[in-house]
Each structure stands twice: as C-alpha cells, then as structure tokens.
C-alpha cells in the first residue's frame, strides 16, 4: 500500500513532449509559470489555457493522470477561490449581514482558480514526461553558472539523484518496520493526534538508524567505484537540443507575446 506512492510520477512514453530536451522543458515550465502570473486578464489567461490544453494532448499521458494530480490540491483550490469570492468591487450579487459577494469577487475567484489549476497542470506535465535522472541532470546543467558563486552544483545534483533512488527503498523499509512493530503490539491506528504522533517514534528511530547504515555502505560503494566529486567526470548520456526544442521555444515565445499583448489591450481583472 505505502509502496504505491511514486515520487515524480514519471510516465514513460515517446511523445513530442517526452522527446524535448529536459533542460528546455524545465526552463519553459518556469517561463510558463511566470507568465501565468503575468497574465492579468481573462484573455491572457485563456491564451495560456489553450497552450496547456495543447501540451496535455501532445504529452500522450492519459488525462485521468492529470485529474488525479488536480484532486490532490482540490482543497487548496476551493479554499483560495472561496476567499477570493469576498474581494473585489462591482455589483453586489448577494449579501448577508456584512458579508457580500460582488461580480468582481466572482471574477476574482474564477481567475485565481484557473491560475492555480494551470500552475499544477504545467508542473505535472514536467514530472510526468521527464524521468527523475533527466531532471537532476538537466538541473545540474542549468545551475552550472552558479559554480562561479561557489555553489556545489554537482554535489546538489548527486544528492537529488541518490534521494530519488532511495525513496522506494526507504518506503519498503518503513513498511517492514511498521509490520514488525505491529507484530510486537504497537498500536498506530487509535488514539488522538498526539498519541498517533508518539506511535510514530518506534518506526522513525529504526528507520533513521538503518538509513545511516545504508548511507555508510553507499559511500563506501561509491568510493570503490572511483567517485571523487564532479571533477573530471563524464556522462554517458549527453543531452542534445534538437529541432523539436526549437519548435517548442518558438511556440512558447508566440504565446508569451500574445499574453503581453492581451495585457496591453484589455483591462486587468485583479486590482
């Protein structure tokens, strides 16, 4: 049961989006997210939404997967849209005591909801179509300039790789420890919040101890395989940008320009 949790949720495939260079995907996702917030009216946001829809269909990932990731943040969406309902001016549509809902409020709520949903969909596309190793490799390349500021870029990327590699291993271990503690009579399902948190201690302590042991073993195995940091290291997979990436960049530029144009010609929704 606990093993079903997958981090990154990479869904292998050969679609246009899958084949884009990971570096390009990360940067474009970042740009899109910025532009979701740059768009200040429905026209601009609509342009972004069309782009998302196109990307979703191109990704070849079943749409149900995207719904699943939206379901996870359903609460956040409802919470923020309800809060926004009470902001903004315009005609009063409904009032009860000092609480009143205005047309501006409704527009705000819808606007913010679309923003959040777009945000989630864009980041989902990235994690669904890019393998964790591709992601960390690409991040290492993107962050390379930070080396000048003495940021240990290679070490950070290596830590991410190892963390991702050990997520399933540690989940499996947690499962085992939980069963072992239950077999000894540990009660993890009943009692109040504090009691349940306290019940986690007999799981966390063995988990920590074994993680340190694993870390020691792994460090030794890495040294045995001549690991000595990023210096002089090569990569088996060299990431090349292709003409597909050029197409993606051009399309993105057009969309971003359209968003800016919408901002200039139409009035903003949020004040």
């Amino acid at each position, binding site marked *: 049961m606990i093993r079903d949790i997958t981090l990154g949720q990479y869904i292998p495939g050969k679609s246009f989006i899958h084949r884009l260079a990971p570096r390009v995907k990360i940067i474009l996702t970042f740009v899109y997210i910025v532009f979701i917030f740059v768009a200040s009216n429905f026209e601009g946001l609509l342009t972004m939404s069309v782009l998302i829809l196109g990307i979703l269909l191109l990704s070849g990932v079943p749409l149900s997967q995207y719904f699943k990731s939206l379901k996870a943040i359903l609460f956040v969406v409802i919470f923020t849209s309800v809060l926004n309902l009470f902001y903004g001016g315009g005609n009063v549509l409904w009032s009860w005591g000092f609480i009143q809902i205005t047309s501006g409020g409704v527009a705000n709520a819808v606007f913010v909801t679309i923003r959040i949903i777009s945000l989630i969909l864009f980041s989902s596309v990235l994690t669904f179509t890019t393998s964790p*190793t591709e992601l960390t490799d690409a991040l290492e390349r993107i962050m390379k300039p930070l080396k000048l500021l003495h940021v240990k870029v290679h070490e950070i990327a290596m830590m991410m*790789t190892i963390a991702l*590699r050990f997520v399933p*291993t540690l989940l499996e271990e947690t499962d085992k420890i939980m069963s072992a503690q239950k077999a000894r009579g540990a009660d993890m399902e009943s009692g109040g919040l504090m009691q349940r948190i306290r019940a986690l201690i007999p799981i966390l302590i063995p988990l920590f101890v074994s993680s340190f042991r694993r870390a020691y073993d792994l460090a030794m195995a890495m040294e*045995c395989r*001549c*690991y000595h940091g990023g210096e002089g*290291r090569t*990569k*088996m997979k060299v990431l090349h940008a292709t003409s597909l990436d050029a197409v993606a960049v051009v399309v993105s530029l057009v969309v971003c320009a359209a968003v800016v144009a919408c901002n200039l010609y139409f009035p903003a929704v949020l004040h």
Partner: protein
Amino acid sequence: MDYINAENITFSYDEPEAAERHEVLRGVSLGIRKGEFVALLGHNGSGKSTIAKTFNAMLLPSGGKVYVDKMDTQDESVLYEIRRRVGLVLQNPDNQLVASVVEEDVAFGPENLGVPPEEIRRRVDEALKAVEMYDFRLNAPYKLSGGQKQRIAIAGIIAMQPDCIVLDEPTAMLDPRGRTEVLDTLHKLNKEKGITIVLITHYMDEAVQAGRVIVMDSGRILTEGTPEEVFSQVELLKKHHLDVPQATELAYRLKASGFDLPGCPLTIEECVAALEPLLKKATVGEAYGDH
C-alpha cells in the same frame, strides 16, 4: 610477484594510542595470482572482510604492505588506478546502487573515470550482457530481485574494466536461486574474461567451487590450498568451529566409524560416486546373509 600481494599486514580499527588495541589482522601474508578464483573463508570477525578492503585501498594496513600489480596501496597518486583494477562488491545489493535506472547505475564507475560518452555506452552494454541483465537495462533497481541487483552491482564493476573483483559475502542476503545466479556469473567471468575473483563467503558449497581456498581465523591464515587439501583437514576446521561441506562431513564420519572410503568427496556427486561401491557391497553382503 603475484597480482595482489599482502606482506605481513596488521590492522586495527582502534586508535593507535588506545590502551586496549584489538588487532583484526595479525600478520597476514598472501598472494592472489592473476586469473585465479580464490575463496576466502572464515567466521564473522576473522578479519576476512577487513583484508578484502585493504586490497583496493579502502583501508590501509597499520603494518605491512599491500601491492596491487606492483603498486603500493599507500601511494595516493595511484589510488584510483588501484580501485579501477580491483573492484569491490559488498554484501547488501540495495546499498550499492546509485542511480534509479539500471544502465545509469552501471555507467557510474566509467563516468567517474572520465571515459568518453560513446565508450561508456559500449562498456555498459557489454557489462550488462556479461551478467545477462541487458534486457533489464531500463528497469528501476528496486523492482529487481536480490540476485539481479547483485549482478547489476557486478556489472557496475565490470564496466570499469577491472583485472580483479573482490566480493565481500555477495550472496549472504540472497535466496538460493539468487546465490546460484551470482555464483554462475562469477565463474563465467573468471573463465571467459580471465577476471581474477576473490570471493569472501561463509558458504562451504561456494568455497568448494573455487580454485583455491584460504581459511582465516582470528586475524591469521589458518590454512590454504585446493578445496580438497583444505577440507580434508576436517579436525583442524572443526577445532576452529568451521564447517566442512556436508558431503565431506558424511564421508568423514563414515571413515571414523570404520568404513573404507576413498579420497575426500566435496560435492554431492563425488560423494555419491564414493558411496556407490560401498552400498553395492553392503546390499550384496546382505543378500548373501539372507540365504
């Protein structure tokens, strides 16, 4: 001079100034020849794992010297050359895989050595084929069985093109099937690629298959020789609470109770061959007795 030479090495995990120093190795000298298949036997705490780690400069001996292909393991300038030539595979297959994809894990070693990308690709494919895991190259390691994971770990070493692989109880955490897979792979690598194998184990049936067996006890070499030479010394091994293969044990007990058995059987097949004439004679005798 042998490929790996340990000259009178001592080792202690305690601080040099510690009042009570527990010596894990107390003067061990041994040589591993190129192309050999050596099994290193011993109890927990006999120093067998420690000595393995001195072979690729993971540990440096407190006294004495270890040479790998005439290179001193204390010489830091040849450290990576030594580790490339002598690969070490550890017990827990889960803890020695670095990447989330099999082929990327195998590439880890050559990547560290700065091998060009096309050459890494070639080596990774070759190494995965050598351990018969090529079809799993795009799998996630956590979905594989213990034996498969351990073979990936071995492939990760092979991709560095070593002369020698030292394995520290590689089968201790595996099921019988995984053990057979790993052992078969090692024998294949030894025969086909001429890679020197040093197998540390406490399974007697694994040691029997080796070309040479070295038995360690309390930081010293107890005895060494061909499997037959070693396991024929049943009394010596028993005195040090070490097991002998079951076939050898059976023959030893039969001999002790006065039965005439030739040689020292090590495997079940040899044991059957040795017992057959004895059993036939017994049934024939019995048949005569009836009439």
